[in-house]
């Protein structure tokens, strides 16, 4: 009996001891240490372990996802132990810190290095000033690439957004919403290599007289035309046939986000407008569009940037031949094929500069909101 009280008492003192300052500091050190130890053990197991594949898969997923969550929790737990003014000062950095560190490592620092390289010669040794930039803006092949990127934005980005919005709105009012959205979304699930194969079955050209295995030429010949090499002929309009592929791929992206936004419009608002006798077109332009304006801006920005960076489709379909080069494929060609580091870097920096107007617009929006 006495022994039981004794042990209870000692457990109590241990707990009490943990609430003292020194105890807290020790706990504050031990918990992160254990966390770190577990993380490192997990990493070594994954790298060198010989467990069956599915075990590794399971452990890896738990270790990766759980580890990141754990880091946030432990750090927050530490911060919330600090005096209030320190906590207020440090907590924002817990929220944005990891993102900023990773972004700096993976994107910001490589970008700065690219900028420095853009002022150097092809081997990255001697400074040549703005020579690379002058070349970028004067060489014919680059002006063609700029023109093509403009075509991509005018047709590709705009139509992706319009079709995405159209499908989202129509599907919302339709009886087969799920089916329609799934079918429009389907192309998003296909890799670029797959998309290239798919569109070859549409655009493929065979000599006149033999059977056409491309759908577009089969239709065209059936109507009495001559077989056309769609992605090579009629420059610069052959770019449009590549743009169609990306509209086909991207509309699903715009649709899903618009659809989520439309679901966020209060049902009562739409109902009230309809009861008041508003037509569908009026509901769309007067209520839906203003309500989801923020989303439209977000999606348009994203799609414009995607389109500006377009690379894979051009690479897979034409490899940039037949005047279909865009800025990103030119960058790739200069960096990896021509090994001209300076020139390639200048192209990449021009790509970054092209998005400055979009950035400024978004930042103006950012300034309008107040934080806590």
């Amino acid at each position, binding site marked *: 009996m006495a022994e039981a009280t004794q042990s209870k008492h000692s457990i109590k003192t241990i707990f009490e001891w943990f609430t003292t300052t020194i105890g807290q500091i020790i706990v504050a050190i031990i918990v992160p240490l254990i966390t770190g130890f577990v993380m490192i053990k997990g990493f070594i197991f994954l790298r060198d372990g010989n467990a069956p594949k599915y075990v590794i898969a399971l452990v890896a997923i738990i270790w990766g996802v759980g580890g990141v969550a754990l880091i946030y929790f432990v750090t927050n737990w530490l911060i919330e132990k600090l005096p209030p003014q320190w906590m207020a000062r440090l907590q924002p950095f817990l*929220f944005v810190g990891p993102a900023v560190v990773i972004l700096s490592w993976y994107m910001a620092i490589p970008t700065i290095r690219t900028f420095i390289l853009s002022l150097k010669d092809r081997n990255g040794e001697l400074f040549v000033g703005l020579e690379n930039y002058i070349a970028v803006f004067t060489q014919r092949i680059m002006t063609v690439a700029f023109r093509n990127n403009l075509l991509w934005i005018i047709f590709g980005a705009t139509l992706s957004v319009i079709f995405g919005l159209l499908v989202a709105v129509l599907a919302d009012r339709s009886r087969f919403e799920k089916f329609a959205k799934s079918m429009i979304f389907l192309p998003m*699930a296909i890799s670029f290599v797959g998309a290239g*194969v798919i569109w070859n079955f549409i655009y493929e050209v065979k000599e006149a007289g033999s059977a056409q295995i491309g759908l577009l030429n089969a239709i065209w010949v059936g109507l009495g035309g001559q077989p056309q090499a769609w992605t090579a002929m009629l420059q610069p309009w052959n770019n449009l046939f590549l743009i169609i592929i990306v509209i086909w791929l991207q509309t699903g992206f715009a649709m*899903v986000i618009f659809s989520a936004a439309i679901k966020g419009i209060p049902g009562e608002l739409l109902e009230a407008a309809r009861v008041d006798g508003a037509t569908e077109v009026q509901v769309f332009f007067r209520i839906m569009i203003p309500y989801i304006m923020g989303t439209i801006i977000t999606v348009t920005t994203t799609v414009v940037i995607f389109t500006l960076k377009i690379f894979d489709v051009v690479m897979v379909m034409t490899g940039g031949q037949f005047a279909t080069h865009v800025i990103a494929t030119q960058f790739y060609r200069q960096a990896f094929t021509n090994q001209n580091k300076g020139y390639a870097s200048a192209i990449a920096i021009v790509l970054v500069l092209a998005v400055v107007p979009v950035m400024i617009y978004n930042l103006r929006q950012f300034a309008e909101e107040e934080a806590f």
Partner: protein
Amino acid sequence: MKSAKGQERTRDLVINGALLLLVIIWTIPTLGLFISSFRTRFDIQTSGWWKVLPHREWVQIEELEIPEGVDPNGIMEIEGVTGTFEEFRAGITNEDGRQITWSGNKRLGTIRINEQKWVIIPRLTTDNYGQVLAGKTYEIQTASGEIRQVQGDNLIGAFLNSITVAVPATIIPILIAAFAAYGFAWMKFPGRKVLFIMVVALLVIPLQIALVPILRDYVQLDLNGTFLAIWLAHTGFGLPLATYLLFNYIRGLPRDILESAFIDGASHFTIFLRLIIPLSIPALASFAIFQFLWVWNDYLVALVFIGAKPNVQVLTMRIAEMVGSRGADWHLLTAGAFVSMILPLIVFFSLQRFFVRGMLAGSVKG
């Protein structure tokens, strides 16, 4: 009352009709791939995929010797139609709707009579899938000098690797981005604006810029070929967009819910976990779908950071390997593209239910 009902029906018809038209246009290319994936290599190369559907085609019903006394160099009359050799080569249609063609050259030809008939090309096969799933066979010379046939790894290992890469590479960036998005949207701290400018600016950076410097860092840290390396790379490349999209969503949440939570004495961390995350489920789910698809279909990043390590190779690498450098193996690519589409579609269908109406509206009222 009746006209209102009629109006409604017309509207229904227009909406569903327009949607159906778009769906058909969007589906045709994929349908072509799907049908082609069941055709033999020869069929794919020689006839359009739509030929498996019933269609009208010229079918030969009779073959004749070249009649005596016909001069191939002049105007000929065969089976009641007249024309030059070139015209007969292309085929001349007579009044009965039959086509008379000269097959072969001028001296050793035959006359074929064709008729339009409904036909299908029924030769469908699952061989392409068999080849893609079972893997190629390799010849290996053992230490003792004998040569053995070894069946290449099947796709299941690569499939598991793809899952191991894609799941954390989807969740980690979303988690980090959600924290950052909340921080930028609702917290005050020095450098908020500058750091946010950085995030938006990085949206446009083509990831090719980063490949070589990061690879160099990985080699120094001995991270190359590990899952951690590729997760971090996908996180880095996906973060700008994830942060930007989630920022827009989280900033758009009604200010009064947050205010009332602060009055109740909740900390930022609690608000984030208990309020922001549940409210942002539609946005998180939308982005999760896209990030998953990009990672799943990525080839470039995997190629650079996983490289030749066979035990961590992902699906896209295996498929690209299968196709080889010839690039003409369309029949394998078609099946491979479909195998790799299965999981993304499952993810889409399972996350689709999160886009439910009024998720946000309900929370504001309550």
